[in-house]
């Protein structure tokens, strides 16, 4: 019986704290996908993803770029007639795929999230310019030039300071993080 735990239930278990298992209430009406501003860049629409989760198409869901293309704008969430927090479900899928290292090849999203978290754990603050340049290798040549031009322009305009900031009580902050994620020796 245990091995038959459906993908639907697995995702519900990721969302148990805030939402229980709302995916089951989906009417497949497509309000989410009709609303989504990023839908044309997704392999499957959000509605289709919900349908696929319910019908246990785990491999196909995980291999799609849909959940990593979600912009977290929550427009689907507020409109959903079945009360499903679809944006939150996308986060659950992202976590699932990160923890299991199962996501579509060539996506920037997982690396970006990794880098973002690492940066915060290391400094307590986020700093966009560093992030952007970190992912430059993943951009195509054209994008790269454009991004570099924009960044240089911003530095020249005085918008970006050249050095990132750090919080003062960084050591304590990091020990705080380690109480949540039990990795690394406690210093």
């Amino acid at each position, binding site marked *: 019986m245990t091995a038959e735990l459906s993908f639907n239930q697995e995702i519900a278990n990721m969302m148990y704290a805030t939402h229980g298992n709302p995916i089951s209430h989906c*009417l*497949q*009406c*497509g*309000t*989410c*996908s*009709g*609303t*989504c501003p990023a*839908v*044309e860049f997704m392999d*499957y*629409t959000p*509605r*289709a993803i919900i349908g696929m989760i319910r019908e246990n198409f785990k491999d196909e869901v995980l291999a799609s770029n849909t959940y990593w293309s979600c912009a977290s704008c929550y427009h689907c969430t507020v*409109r*959903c*007639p*079945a*009360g499903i927090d679809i944006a939150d479900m996308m986060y659950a899928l992202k976590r699932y795929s990160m923890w299991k290292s199962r996501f579509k090849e060539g996506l920037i999203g997982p690396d970006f999230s990794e880098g973002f978290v690492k940066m915060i754990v290391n400094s307590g603050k986020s700093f966009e310019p560093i992030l952007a340049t970190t992912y430059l290798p993943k951009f195509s040549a054209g994008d790269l030039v454009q991004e570099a031009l924009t960044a240089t322009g911003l530095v020249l305009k005085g918008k970006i300071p050249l050095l990132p900031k750090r919080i003062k009580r960084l050591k304590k902050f990091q020990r705080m993080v380690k109480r949540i994620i039990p990795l690394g020796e406690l210093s």
Partner: protein
Amino acid sequence: MVQVGSHPNITLLTWSEVTKVDGYVGNFVVTINKKARYIKTEDCTGCGICWEKCPWKVVDEVFEVGMAKRKAVYVPFPQSVPKYPVIDAPNCAYFLKGTCKACEKFCPTNAIDFNQKDEAISVQVGNIILATGFDLFDAKRIPQYGYGRLENVYTNLEFERLCNAAGPTGGNIVLRDGKTVPKTVGIVHCVGSRDQNYNSYCSAICCMQSLKFAHLVHERTGAEVYNFYIDMRTPSKGYEEFYQRLLEEGTHFVRGKVAEISDFARVPEEEGKLVIQVEDTLIGKQRRIPVDMVVLSAGLQPRHDAKEVGKMFGIACSSDGWYIERHPKLDPVATMTEGVFIAGAVQGPKDIPASVAQGAGAAARVLGKIQQKEIALEPVRASINEAQCSGRRICNGLCPFSAILFHEDKMVSEINPALCQGRGTCVAACPAGAISGTCFSNEQIPFADRGIAAAQSRCKGGGGCVVVIG
């Protein structure tokens, strides 16, 4: 309706409101406020000269949904029964400024009476049927559909007037400018229905209504019609066949709940159009469909005052606000209050045939009761032992059917068995233990428990059983 108006055994009170209901089945006393009509109905012939001559025009927000005007003296719609008009005092020149009286001057039978006052009457009746209908969902509550903001977005009621030969456009389906015939029309189903953000139930009539609209648009304008639906629900006789006909007529059926309607064009084809953004769930793609006109099939909802009215008649509303029937399957016409029946959309969303059927059912139930001359009540009733009653009146306010009355002289409460429905709240609440329920006395309950246990031990869980105790 005309027959009803002229039947000798039917007294029709329009422009009237029930303010109080006392008594019980066979013996209700209903107090009614007959609002001043300013027309002597005994003299009025309904000739219509008054509203022809009245110089004051008022936007008709009710029957014409704001799309046309009526006079300050008017009948709500041409076929209304009875035929007498009413003067709309807040909009009448005489009541506002003290002059005019055009209607009075022209009335051939001197039926106008500006001095009429509201009149409270009370009637004694044996049974009551409530058929107060529904309210339309306010489409403005869904701002992303643009109703009230985007000109050519219509509600179903507005479109209904647009199609009507006696309506503001004489039955021509045109845009708000009054002349342009739309080339494409989008009809949006489930507006405010099947949606936890608004009403979570299905409004039952919108699918067929939307199909009818699509058919009328085809027939009168030849326009392309897009119907946007979640599920197509055509469960009654002949309805599926109508759906088939629409499919043959070439209506586009897009399966998907409309996300938003916008007047902003992204591409040249969208210029000057309303753009319906939706996922076509059968294709799995977001589509933007430019149309000239949008019709929103707004759902049904309980009357805004259903709760207060229900309270007056001793009946309860479900969580959605519809009146609760005695039993959803076995007794969908009666209510928990003996002698009060419901018919039509007060009970829940339903279409015309179903409302007519229920109305006939309710009438038959009342006739049956009249015929019987006496009524059989459910045996489960509460009664008060006068000797034990301490007269503290704790039970008095608890009864939802107002079945408990108090004798000031004897300082004891008494239960009217005709009103009591055996709910037992009072039995549990009485600190003196003076109230007992028939069949539920302390002595009887252990036996009943044993009976249930025995029944359970034999039960194979097949369902469909009814266990009757007592």
